[in-house]
């Protein structure tokens, strides 16, 4: 990657050249993203140790030793004129020259980075110039800090830690809803209006319900059971009702109640519709893979209790309940 290259559309909008979906957002390498987001001035060390060109190398050695660093920028009249590092001092040692001045042995070839560039720029410069530290200058070319690979690693770790904490807080808030709100009986109610014959939206409410339950910290297995039951109930409203109906989810700490209510046509024989394989679906609907006569059977299998009441000409009410074992809505997730 060349240093001044402009980022491609793909890099900005997602690596696969399309708008970023939730799934991608999860997969994008956060460190990669951070190397563009984090600016050099955010991670560099500002606590600057500098040397002037006329002090002796043994004095510099003392600065390096006391501060446990391996190099310092050399500044003369507030201007950056070079860098002196352990390697330069080793060269002087070979000549038995430690009394010489910094100016004699410092590296004058100045490679700097500017404070408002992304850390990716510093990383590229480290790689290209084979150096381990870089002086950071501002717009007036004045020295404002030093950056090392260690600073970058630390900066990224701190940023990741912050991300992680924010995510934790977000999760905590949703999953502790029931503990935080004190009442004699707290119920969270979600309602969905389901339109008859709208196959395009079929399963949308169920997907939303499953996601909501997971956000609330429900066990994955319970969210799955609710998802399947509520999907079958949602499809029944779409396939069989005259004017659609209402799908309702009531979440309590110990129980999840799902129900559908519609105003017709009603079921003549509720025992018959509970028989596996019994279906009144039209051929057209069957072609789409519905009408297997397994919907209510599936629901029964997934929930702890199911009640079906129907009056021909008036409508049908289906109530499904799943008991939540104690300690389930606490953010713990299982397989």
């Amino acid at each position, binding site marked *: 990657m060349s240093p001044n290259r402009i980022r491609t559309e793909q890099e900005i909008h997602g690596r*696969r050249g*399309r708008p970023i*979906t*939730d*799934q991608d957002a999860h*997969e994008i390498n956060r460190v990669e993203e951070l190397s563009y987001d984090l600016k050099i001035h955010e991670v560099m060390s500002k606590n600057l140790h500098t040397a002037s060109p006329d002090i002796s190398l043994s004095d510099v050695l003392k600065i390096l030793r006391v501060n446990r660093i391996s190099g310092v920028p050399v500044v003369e009249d507030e201007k950056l004129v070079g860098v002196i590092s352990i390697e330069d001092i080793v060269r002087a040692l070979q000549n038995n020259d430690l009394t010489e001045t910094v100016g004699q042995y410092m590296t004058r070839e100045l490679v700097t980075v500017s404070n408002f560039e992304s850390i990716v720029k510093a990383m590229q410069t480290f790689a290209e110039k084979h150096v381990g530290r870089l002086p950071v200058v501002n717009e007036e070319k004045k020295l404002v800090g030093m950056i090392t690979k260690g600073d970058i690693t630390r900066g990224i770790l701190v940023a990741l830690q912050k991300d992680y904490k924010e995510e934790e807080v977000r999760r905590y808030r949703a999953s502790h809803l029931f503990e935080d709100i004190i009442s004699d009986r707290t119920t969270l109610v979600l309602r969905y209006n389901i339109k008859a014959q709208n*196959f*395009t939206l*079929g*399963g*949308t409410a*169920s*997907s939303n319900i*499953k996601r909501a339950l997971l956000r609330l910290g429900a066990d994955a297995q319970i969210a*799955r059971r609710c*998802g*399947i039951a509520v*999907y*079958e109930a949602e*499809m029944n409203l779409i396939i069989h009702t005259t004017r659609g109906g209402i799908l309702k989810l009531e979440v309590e700490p110990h129980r999840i109640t799902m129900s559908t209510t519609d105003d017709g046509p009603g079921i003549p024989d509720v025992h018959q519709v509970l028989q596996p394989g019994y279906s009144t679906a039209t051929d057209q609907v069957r072609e*789409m*893979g*519905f009408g*297997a*006569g*397994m*919907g209510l*059977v*599936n629901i029964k*299998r997934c929930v702890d209790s199911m009640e079906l009441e129907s009056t021909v000409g008036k409508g049908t009410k289906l109530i499904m309940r799943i008991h939540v074992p104690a300690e389930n809505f606490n953010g713990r997730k299982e397989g």
Partner: protein
Amino acid sequence: MNLQQIIERLELDLLTDSRDFTLIHPEGGYTSDLLSCVMAGAKSKYLWVTLQAHLNIVAVASLLDVAAVIITENAKPDAATIAKANEQGMILLSTSMPSFEVDGKLWEMGIRS
């Protein structure tokens, strides 16, 4: 066995967005065109082999959290279905083979139910 190997061996066409399929390890398979049967029979991380190609397969696949849907006999989902699948992070694959043949090949590769 990862999904990348399965896609290559069965020469499946990818209908949804590309991603690193070597990270996806299907844990079994289920074949049916009846959505309620799939709801009952397909487990999470299973491959679902079906002839159905309409929009509702995405909701079913996503509720069940299947590893991928293999649509057989060249049945082609429409653009809305593919868009919805991408939005939900579901993988749709296509083949001209009938479901029976796909199942046989998957079984040979060690995918069981």
